[in-house]
């Protein structure tokens, strides 16, 4: 469970991206949709503990993200839109770090790397030697380590080849079926719409949650399209 209580956040004073947001997200797939710049990625960054809120609190499985940092992040995996990895680390080092912090055996890093379709020889290369696509795969590999309970995925299918997309979708479905909370921000609605339990959009600093989504496929598609265009749900 991820819970936002009275959360406000802005990059510049007086221009809030989120204003006093109250939100509770249960396990299952939640699709975050909306226009560019509406605050989707910011919402995920806040949920992932990347940026601290200006006001309010965020809890993950009952742990405050900024007071019980380790406990709150123990089962959390975040895949950012831009894979901002430190350029001076090798992929092997990053994955080993994730294994150590999540308490997973380091062998699981090799498995995740192979599953993400990264060539084994890349493990010893530094991040700045990798293409953007390879960096994304490295971050996705890191997300697979330790079977996280909360997945926060920002445009997870971007810059992926067809095989990679299929792998990512299968992994998301696998985690969802295992009872994980999956929060996906994406402009690509079709791959996620059938499995989504609820949808969320950000508009004018407010979060609008539709829970549950309509069961009818056509109606669900229309609603998601409407939310993706920035129009409020009916």
């Amino acid at each position, binding site marked *: 469970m991820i819970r936002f209580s009275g959360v406000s956040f802005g*990059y510049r004073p007086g221009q809030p991206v989120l204003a006093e947001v109250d939100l509770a997200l249960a396990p299952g797939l939640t699709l975050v949709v909306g226009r560019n710049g509406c605050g989707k990625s*910011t919402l995920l*960054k806040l949920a*992932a*503990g*990347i*940026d*601290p809120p200006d006001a309010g609190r965020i809890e993950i499985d009952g742990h405050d993200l*900024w007071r019980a*940092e*380790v*406990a*709150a*992040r*123990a089962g*959390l*995996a*975040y895949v*950012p839109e831009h*894979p*901002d*990895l*430190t*350029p*001076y*680390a090798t992929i*092997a*080092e990053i*994955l*080993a*770090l*994730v*294994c*150590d*912090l*999540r308490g997973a055996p*380091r*062998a699981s*890093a*090799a498995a995740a*790397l*192979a599953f993400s379709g990264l*060539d*084994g*020889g*890349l*493990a*010893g*290369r*530094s991040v*700045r*030697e*990798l*293409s*953007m696509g390879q*960096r994304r795969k490295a*971050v996705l590999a890191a997300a697979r380590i330790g079977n996280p309970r909360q997945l*926060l995925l920002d445009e997870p299918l971007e810059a992926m080849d067809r095989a990679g997309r299929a792998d990512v979708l299968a992994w998301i479905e696998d985690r969802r079926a295992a009872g994980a909370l999956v929060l996906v921000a994406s402009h690509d609605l079709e791959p996620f719409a059938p499995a989504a339990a609820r949808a969320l959009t950000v508009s004018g600093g407010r979060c609008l949650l539709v829970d549950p989504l309509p069961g009818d496929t056509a109606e669900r598609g229309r609603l998601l399209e409407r939310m993706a265009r920035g129009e409020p749900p009916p």
Partner: protein
Amino acid sequence: MLESTRTLWRTCRFHLRVGARLALAVLVPAVAVTIGVMAFLREDFVEALGLLLFGATGSLPTALVVLGSAVAVAAVAAPRVCAGLGWLRHLPVAGASQRRAVTAAVALAQAPWLAILALLVAEAAGHPGAATAAHLAGLPVIALAAAQLALQPWRRPGALPPAIGAGLLAGLGSWLVLAAALALVAASDLAAGPPLRRSRRTAAPAIGAPAMLAALAAPAPRWSLPARIGWRALGWGRVRAYAIALVPWLAANFFSRNNQLSPTHAARAALLGGAVSCVGLLATLAATLGARRPAWPWSRSLPWSARRRVLGDAVLLGAHAVPLLALTAAVSPAAVPALAALLPLLAVRAAGALRRPVTSRQGGAAGEIVMEGLLLAGLAALLPWAAAAMLAAVPLALRTAAARERRQKLGAWHERQHLAAGDPQSWSGD
């Protein structure tokens, strides 16, 4: 297809603008520092320096010093001028023309330094036999040669000797030799050829699953991974940091040796020198770390605490200062306990300064560390017992730094602080 003069000029103008912008960016601080240093060192020293470097008869060692300084400035300017050059290569301009334009831009970017050298030439002008005009005319040639040397990785090896010769001859202050220097600059340019591909680090050989597992199961302890990343990011920046740190230590050492001091005062002088050395080292290292190891937003989603991240940086920075403790012990062992008690606080505050709230692209962590550090160093030198209180303040400083780490908005931080040069994934990276 031959290039038109117009295309060449436009290419040149583009790169020269880049060089001019770089020069303007450093002009004001360079002039301010020069005026400050000249006021501090007094007229007779500046005049003596001018005479030494640009007196009547030039010598090879002084020419080497002048060329060395110009190459150092050019080496700083070159990666900035060359950033994004890869993308420009797809435009219909010959590689050699691009290289020439970039060389001119790097030479132009040295303008503030050339202005300082010109001031020194002017200081020597009033003296009998001073070759003022020849020295002044030699400065642009030195800048061109320095630019060629700074861009050597893109040039054929045969272009190196004439560039060195040109830079040295241009500093000798003789019209005849200056003409030879110009000829050598041209020869170096002709020998350089089209821009070479810079050799990248050799790719790791493809390895199978067992070897990959071995790489991932490396015996490194878990705490060492962030330290290793930080260590690698600091790289050769350490050399600069230690060079800066040695200056106050040397000054304190000279002061102690050249004055009759009581043991107490000698210990306090050594303590002040050692503490200021540590401050210089920590400030330089923190600035390097802040630029080269951009805050890593994704890493904050992992289950480790802000306190642990800050402590890791503090230990990494503080460990670098241990050799300075040994150097201080060599001057005055009595100064070591107080310095050792002060160091943890300085290291934690430095790690905290890395997490300062950033409001603009300007300014690094160094300023804050120097300001605070000098105050603490002065206090410890005046009242050595205060170092014990500073040691006791470490947990509080750690708490404050961790709180600062939590408050950082990394979404905004990355764009402002990330040094794009050297990152091939950046639009402006080389």
